[in-house]
């Protein structure tokens, strides 16, 4: 079941001549994780804003092409500290901010908030004041705030940027879990080594356009390696002068190794 479909979408921010997205077409199905990769400024963040119906509705600008959503979407933006509601003195209330705005009954809100806190492993922070949290704690709180709204389409922009390595691993595991429950997930990330274990498909963006769409195996191809988008293992394999196809992950490499 398709949750999101972009057809030939081109998008211009206000007062700019060059489009930030060029003729992007993409479909995302329920239960699927799509990773957006590319250089800084390639258009991944803009694509997420369009998918979330924030661009151009809130950002302004102009959109050509068609966007179809068959789901309620939720988005996590890259800087966690500008996403706090400013209206909550505890983490629990902060996470409840979104669900309350949806007008759900109180017991439903409580159930979803408690569940989201558990999933992000931040139950112990529930009574803390959000402004006293560290960057990594804050990032978890913001993601919890999104999940508590129970969206069918989850959009994430660099969700592990503030997390320590163990925290990042938990985040990726959580995304797989959510996909298993039928959520459609689109995630922009510069953490390429995590992509093969997490994503079903990879969208390679370049200067606002789709350069390629494929399985994560894309990140082991010569073209991707040339552009700095190969996984570490693929790059090492290639640099060592070994024959393609290159392994994607450490596990692949072990299998390949005599």
């Amino acid at each position, binding site marked *: 079941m398709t949750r999101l479909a972009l057809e030939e979408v081109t998008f211009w921010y206000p007062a700019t001549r060059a489009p930030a997205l060029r003729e992007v077409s993409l479909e995302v199905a329920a239960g699927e994780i799509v990773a957006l990769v590319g250089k800084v400024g390639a258009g991944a963040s803009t694509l997420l804003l369009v998918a*979330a119906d*924030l661009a151009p509705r809130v950002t302004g600008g102009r959109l050509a092409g068609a966007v179809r959503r068959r789901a309620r979407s939720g988005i996590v933006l890259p800087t966690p500290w500008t996403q706090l509601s400013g*209206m909550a003195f505890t983490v629990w209330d902060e996470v409840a901010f979104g669900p309350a705005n949806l007008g759900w009954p109180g017991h439903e809100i409580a159930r979803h908030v408690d569940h989201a806190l558990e999933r992000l492993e931040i139950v112990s922070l529930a009574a803390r004041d959000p402004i006293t949290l560290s960057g990594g704690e804050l990032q978890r709180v913001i993601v919890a705030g*999104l999940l508590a709204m129970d969206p069918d389409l989850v959009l994430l922009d660099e969700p592990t940027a503030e997390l320590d390595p163990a925290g990042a691993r938990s985040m990726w595991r959580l995304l797989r879990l959510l996909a298993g429950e039928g959520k459609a997930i689109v995630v922009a990330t510069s953490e390429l080594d995590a992509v093969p274990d997490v994503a079903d498909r990879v969208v390679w963006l370049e200067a606002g356009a789709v350069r390629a769409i494929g399985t994560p195996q894309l990140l082991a191809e010569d073209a991707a390696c040339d552009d700095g988008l190969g996984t570490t293992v693929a790059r090492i394999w290639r640099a060592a002068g070994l024959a393609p196809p290159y392994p994607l992950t450490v596990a692949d490499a072990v299998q390949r190794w005599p």
Partner: protein
Amino acid sequence: MRALHPFTLLAVAAALPALAWILPAPAGGLATAGIAFCLLGSRGLRRGLWPALVAAAPFWLFLLLLHDVRTTLAIGLRISTMVASFVWLAAVLAPDRLVEATVARGWSITAAYLFAATLSAVPMLRARARRIVEAQRCRGLSPRGSVANRLRALRALALPLVLSALHEVDERTLALEARGLVPGARRTPLAPPPDRVVERVVRWGLLLLCLAALVRRVA
């Protein structure tokens, strides 16, 4: 004080300046300023009294330059009441409780949020200014020393303070939209602050008091 219903806090903060202007000077102003500063005193010297005194001082200076002592005293006390009431309100009124209270009264969430955000703008700007000044000092700009130095530092702060605040409004708008803060949303009050009968009586009492004072003044 924070346990009081937000509307009660608003009523007190509105009634004091109103009475200061309605009641005859200087006794009326002295009484209201006295009450306002007593309320502030309960917040402590640094967080309560000090900011209010600093904010009120320039008004007294200008008044003294422009008027005689009598007028200065009359207007100065009224302005001090206004300043002290506002500083007190900003210190005791929790924006989340205000949002809850207004939403419980049937306001739309966007209107409630805007109202609460206006009141919490001052402390947020102050925190932002502090972080910018810290970063500027770490790059060698001294906010201390001669008057010229201080002015230079103030000028260096003003523009980034405004620009960064505006910029953050852009990002925050996106985030709030994404979290369901959209026009027409009917928010579920999470924990609407209890509104006791005593407090309702006090609020009506304050309103009647202001009206009575006004009628007496006009008559």
